[in-house]
């Protein structure tokens, strides 16, 4: 794989750098964002259930 990368010249190293950086950025951002979205949905549903139970 490294031999293939080296055969691509300078632009191979440049594109690899940017692709790996973008992948790391997404790996940093997406999991907390998705977890937070799920938690908000769960908490909102629970709060609505409690509110409805209280009203009835």
């Amino acid at each position: 794989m490294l031999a293939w990368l080296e055969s691509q010249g300078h632009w191979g190293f440049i594109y690899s750098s940017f692709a790996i950086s973008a992948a790391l950025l997404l790996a940093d951002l997406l999991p907390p964002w998705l977890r937070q979205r799920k938690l908000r949905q769960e908490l909102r549903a629970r709060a609505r259930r409690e509110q409805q139970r209280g009203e009835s």
Partner: protein
Amino acid sequence: MNPVFRWFHQLGSPPYFYRFATRALPWFGIPALLLAAVGLYLGLLKVPADYLQGDSFRIMYIHVPSAWMSMFIYVLMAVYGAIALIWRIKITEILFLACAPIGAMFTAITLITGMLWGKPTWGAYWVWDARLTSELVLLFLYFGVMALASAYDDLRQGARAAAVLALVGVVNIPIIHFSVQWWNTLHQGETVRIFGKSSIDGSMLWPLLIMALATKLYFIFALLLRARGSLLEQERGKQWVRDMLVRGRA
């Protein structure tokens, strides 16, 4: 009370911080994205190739801002850690813990892009040079902070233990910065200076400064996002969370 001090004081309140973070997120995320697009366009397509390194120097537009961020975030994390240890403010504990994975990500980008820049420039992906080794130590410090914090069942206790490690690790930051002056390294010396003349050409400097600003704004965006999520998890049983999620007010 001075309005600025009052604002900082209010930020210590979880509902206020949550509302502030929610409002502030697009103001940092969108400019970060736009600036990164401009910086990369200029850096990849407009700036001429370097007379010595050819096109490979373009890796600098991601490597250098990431390296600056890796050190900046560590110092900020240590400051939050010190505040968390001294005053035990919940928000600073959350911000301290939120800094570590973002800092680790920037350090990993620095090391990987450095390796990919090193091969066409030095002929080797890795050398045990003072700058490279001290940056690798920084990555281990970030991992150590995250591991130590998660080793405790109580998040706040974990944050305070990890804060001690973060404070001890600050000694590595001047080592990274001055390594190219203190030792004879393969890594090049300082080319961009805040005080004094930079040895980089102006046409190459501007895209770099734009990328540096983009990474700073991204960091604030990611920090607020992570801190907001962590706050929601910790405060999930509180009345203000119910009020905010059901009636849309905090």
